[in-house]
């Protein structure tokens, strides 16, 4: 009887699968822009769009597979040693990715440097394992990690493309401007990473603030729109 009740309450705690399970990682709880996690790879490998994309895909793979495993093993891992177990699981997948990238493209491997191995200490992955995968069943976890991974890749691409366009005048290696373009070299150097990420955050802050004002002044806005439509 008691057991039944417990299992009932357990299933109650599971999240209902909805589009939100996937989408909130992409926008509302974006790991980079909103939660400010995993900053090191975000700043370090985004000096070109292709590096950013590769890093995003690699991290998403590790996030997805390690969280799936954590979710499957959630009833077997003792609570006291859970962090250590998660780290070992993550490290295993990172080693796999590390060797895979080395085999697929050595150029990419050299460009990303130690940052592939440093996916191990990406707080997003451990954070998701602790906060979500250890409590939810597989389908939810897969969707959620896919969303978070997509959000992370999206953020990396936001930074990578801006920095590559400003810093070298190209995107994914394709020249965008004529030869007269003066590259803004500082953008592909370390300070550029801080500046571009700071600017993105400024933009999002501004949008969020404007949205808040819009809600409080909703009446005004509709009135203004009506008058401008009439004009």
């Amino acid at each position, binding site marked *: 009887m008691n057991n039944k009740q417990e299992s009932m309450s357990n299933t109650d705690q599971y999240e209902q699968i909805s589009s939100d399970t996937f989408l909130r990682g992409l926008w509302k709880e974006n790991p980079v822009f909103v939660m400010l996690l995993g900053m*090191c790879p975000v700043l370090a490998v985004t000096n070109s769009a292709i590096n950013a994309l590769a890093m995003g895909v690699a991290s998403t793979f590790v996030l997805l597979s390690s969280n799936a495993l954590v979710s499957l093993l959630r009833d077997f891992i003792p609570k006291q040693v859970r962090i*250590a177990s998660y780290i070992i699981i993550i490290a295993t997948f990172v080693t796999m990715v590390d060797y895979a990238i080395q085999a697929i493209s050595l150029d990419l491997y050299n460009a990303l440097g130690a940052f592939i191995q440093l996916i191990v200490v990406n707080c997003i992955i451990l954070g998701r394992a602790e906060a979500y995968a250890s409590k939810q069943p597989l389908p939810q976890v897969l969707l959620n990690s896919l969303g978070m991974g997509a959000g992370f890749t999206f953020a990396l691409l936001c930074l990578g493309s801006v920095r590559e366009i400003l810093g070298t005048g190209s995107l994914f290696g394709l020249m965008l401007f004529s030869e007269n373009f003066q590259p803004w070299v500082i953008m592909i150097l*370390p300070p550029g990473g*801080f500046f571009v990420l*700071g600017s993105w*955050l400024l933009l999002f*802050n501004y949008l969020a603030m404007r949205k808040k004002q819009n809600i409080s002044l909703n009446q005004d806005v509709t009135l203004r729109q009506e008058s401008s439509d009439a004009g």
Partner: protein
Amino acid sequence: MQADSLTYIFLNSAIVNNFVLAMFLGICPFLGVSAKKDTAISMGLAVIFVMLVSSATAYGVNAILMAFNIEYLRLICYIAVIASAVQLVEMTMKKYTPSLFRALGIYLPLITTNCAILGVALFQTSREYNFIQSMVFSLGAGTGFTLALLLMAGLRQQLELAKIPNVSQGAALTLMLAGLLSLAFMGFTGMGA
């Protein structure tokens, strides 16, 4: 200066290729704990200590792995070494300096996921430093981290008195500051390799 002399290794890892501002390692604690100078110093010291311990242990672990030809286990072993070193520091601090332990809060266990520490272990392996060089390298990296943290904390404490637009409050402003600081450290480029 010779590229493998100890002075060179120290200055290179502390200033020229500063771990935080030039190589983007350890950004999370850099942004998180740099609000006050006191906590910044103690965080820096804790990181230096963990770095030295884990770097020394990682050197030994790597030698063993090489002997058995199982280098693919390197990452897993290193992270386990670092996690235990952090645990050690945490227990010591809790016993001898409880106030500091509370001040550092969540960021103390999070040293485990500080990429600077794993970075030191990985770089010393890939650059094939010997034991003394590894120790100097990790000391330099830790000093560089502390320096960056301290500079940042000083700037942020001054900024508390300044009037800034609402939009730029929080992380955006901190990142812009870090960018300026990183720009300043760019001045050292060319002194290294």
